């Protein structure tokens, strides 16, 4: 399975996701933001970091870079695209996934483990997972997912919410909302469910001696789904 990770100026989780993808069997290629062409890929990942320093709005300038034209075309023709953290912010800026990401409620960067609940498995990312609650790591300053009530209804009706922040039993409540996100939303899909944006970093959870191994479960399942 071939994957591509885009490096933007200021990306800093590009190596981490490269390590994770290769570890679970992808043949990964790093792609420079200023390139025009995307190599042939089964999965494109927009990594975490601070593209363009997070200046202006997170992800805004990266969303205008050359390679993004190809990424958008790839997504529109049904290709799998995943944006993690800053990658999610970039996806939001392109309009590929709905909503926006505002500053965290308490205006502080948060780096810690959280639990998220997957409740829609009818998609290539989560299909066949035999587990609903995952412990993932977050590290962000602007992960406060916001959308209007009408939008919220629409994305919920379309099953577009990918993951919710919750406790270790899968209970979602404001107490387990780390950043003020609307309805505890931690990640969303596009309508067609081939584009996923999420704040948590599964690539930081791929080894027991790091923050845990739930990321390993996610990636192993992902590559099996694509095969």
């Amino acid at each position: 399975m071939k994957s591509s990770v885009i490096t933007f100026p200021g990306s800093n989780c590009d190596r981490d996701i490269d390590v994770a993808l290769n570890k679970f069997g992808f043949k990964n290629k790093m792609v420079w933001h200023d390139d025009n062409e995307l190599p042939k890929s089964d999965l494109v990942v927009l990594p975490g970091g601070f593209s363009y320093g997070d200046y202006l709005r997170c992800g805004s300038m990266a969303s205008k870079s050359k390679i993004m034209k190809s990424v958008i075309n790839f997504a529109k023709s049904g290709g799998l695209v995943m944006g993690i953290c800053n990658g999610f912010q970039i996806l939001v800026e392109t309009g590929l996934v709905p909503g926006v990401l505002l500053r965290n409620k308490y205006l502080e960067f948060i780096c810690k483990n959280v639990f998220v609940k997957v409740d829609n498995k009818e998609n290539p990312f989560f299909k066949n997972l035999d587990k609903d609650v995952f412990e993932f790591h977050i590290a962000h300053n602007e992960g406060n997912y916001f959308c209007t009530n009408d939008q919220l209804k629409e994305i919920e009706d379309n099953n577009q919410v990918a993951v919710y922040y919750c406790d270790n039993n899968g209970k979602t409540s404001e107490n387990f909302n780390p950043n003020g996100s609307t309805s505890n939303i931690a990640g969303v899909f596009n309508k067609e469910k081939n584009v996923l944006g999420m704040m948590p970093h599964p690539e930081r959870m791929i080894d027991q001696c790091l923050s845990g191994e739930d990321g390993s479960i996610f990636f192993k399942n992902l590559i099996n789904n694509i095969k």
Partner: protein
Amino acid sequence: MRVSAIITLKKDVLDPQGKVIHQALDGMGFKDVNEVRQGKYFEIDVKENDPQKAKSLVEDMCKKLLANLVIENYKIIETQ
């Protein structure tokens, strides 16, 4: 010539920064505040010297990059 643009969050969009600043002001003794909203301000020096053209150039920048029209409004406020 210099053109300025102000970008503000739309009315129904949550403004976490404004809210925290409001609380901070309150804590400092500024009790008479109803609301604080934070926005962005840009001063852009363009080569264009015709005020009308310069403004519409900056308006174009707002639409294409500076503002996210899903949640933000922009206003071109002044030219010098």
